[in-house]
């Protein structure tokens, strides 16, 4: 095992356990890990962005391929930084206007096509199947029917221009049931996702508890527990003195 891998394992285990110490209560060890995480994430992101965007997409094409027209987007990018200098902050509007115009032009037609037209098409599917000379009702047709009822009733629920009484109220009520089912499914999937994260983390902690990694998990778990006990004792002493 390389020294880098070993150090990496100890750092990963240590930071994971410090973060999990929040489950006991908010404490300085958790805050330390949290601040390290924020700092490292920002640093990593800045470095990657510098090399992948500033160097690979701007500097190298200009210098090696003589694409000098890239000065224009670079200048527009610099104008955005004028937000930090109040007297010339208005210059950033030029870049934002350019960005908004381009983004809207690209996104609006594609989004309408993908998420409205195609979804509407997917909602209106045959409610019966023509098999030979007679019509049949299959499970696929049942799905199409449920989707149609769901979409129409939920749209009714969000239709506020008409008072929800009589037939409208009944249809909107069905819409609420569909919404409740969708919220339940979303919550179930969220629980599943959070548990998966825990499983992934615990799985790695188990791997790092082996002798190959110097029993990193066990050693650091004991260290974190001792640290928390020491901190808790300090907290209690401070409270007693204040009393």
């Amino acid at each position, binding site marked *: 095992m390389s020294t880098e891998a070993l150090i990496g394992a100890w750092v990963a285990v240590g930071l994971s356990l410090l973060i999990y110490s929040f*489950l*006991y209560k908010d404490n300085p060890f958790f805050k330390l890990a949290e601040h390290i995480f924020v700092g490292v*994430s920002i640093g*990593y*992101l800045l470095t*990657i*962005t510098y090399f*992948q*965007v500033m160097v*690979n*997409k701007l500097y*190298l*094409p200009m210098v090696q391929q003589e694409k000098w027209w890239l000065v224009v987007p670079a200048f527009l990018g610099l104008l955005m930084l004028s937000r930090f200098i109040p007297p010339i902050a208005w210059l950033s509007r030029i870049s934002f206007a350019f960005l908004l115009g381009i983004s809207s032009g*690209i*996104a609006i037609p*594609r*989004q309408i*096509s*993908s*998420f409205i037209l*195609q*979804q509407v*098409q*997917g909602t209106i599917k045959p409610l019966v199947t023509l098999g030979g000379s007679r019509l049949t009702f299959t499970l696929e047709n049942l799905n199409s029917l449920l*989707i149609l009822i769901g979409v129409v009733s939920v749209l009714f629920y969000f239709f506020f221009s008409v008072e929800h009484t009589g037939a409208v109220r009944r249809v909107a009520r069905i819409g609420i049931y569909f919404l409740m089912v*969708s919220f339940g*499914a*979303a919550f179930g*999937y*969220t*629980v*599943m*996702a*959070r*548990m*998966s*994260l*825990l*499983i*992934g*983390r*615990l*799985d790695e902690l*188990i791997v790092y508890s082996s002798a190959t990694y110097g029993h990193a998990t066990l050693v650091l778990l004991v260290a974190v527990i001792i640290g928390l006990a020491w901190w808790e004792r300090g907290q209690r002493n401070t409270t007693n003195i204040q009393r």
Partner: protein
Amino acid sequence: MSTFIHRLLRLDRRIIFLLIGVMTLLPLLYPVGLPVYVSPEVKKIYDHVESLPAGTLILLSFDFEPGGKPELYPMAIALLRQAFQKNLKVLGMTLWPAGAGLAESALTQVAQEAGKERGTDYVFLGYAPGDANAVISMGQDFRAAFPTDYAGTKIAAIPLLANVRSLRDIAYVISLSVGFPGIETWYVYGKEKYGFELGGGCTAVSAPRFYPLLNTGQINGLLGGLRGAAEYELLIGAQGKAIAGMDAQSATHFLIILLIAICNAAYFLTEQARGRRS
């Protein structure tokens, strides 16, 4: 009885954390091997990859960062194992800046297992900045979007990419997505215009968002969360991290259902609830 119910409703949340921790840890240490069933949306991706002839170029976009690793990394490993077993050519890339390290690690690991060579059997292009713009740029001029691969080798010097000029030259794209940019970006700015087939893998929390796309055929299959990864591992016949985690997943789900049932029953038995109903 009443005291017990009140105590239950005021249960210290740390006891619940502890129970969840124990229920997760025990199955990981002592696996039971609960059955895993393959869902149609997962099978569709497997079948599509199986149907591709040897030598076909596919693109695997690792659109995730370390936060999505437990769910999406096992999917990537399983998909790569199947692709290399089928002798497909694989292009790897990511739309997430923090995804490059994970993506390269997965590609290198599976390629070494399968005895595949960088440049002829697979290429890792690295991080493509610009979200949707990156996809559009790849569609218009692949070499302008990626002048070099992740290692700095010029695209023109890579045999695998000799005939690749646009996304139209790629048969199948699979985006393993933790959020935006991801599956939606590939569909909206890629598939609609350049006509390749698109499959997706996502974290469980975002899976409900993609079922409408699946229903309309905008994506041809979906691997949702750790369960999706486990099903895929089952299909390729190689047990990995996902199947190993399914026992723990089932155990924690059982505990959560039990806790919800007990706490709801306890709530309805309290005098407070009775008062509200009256």
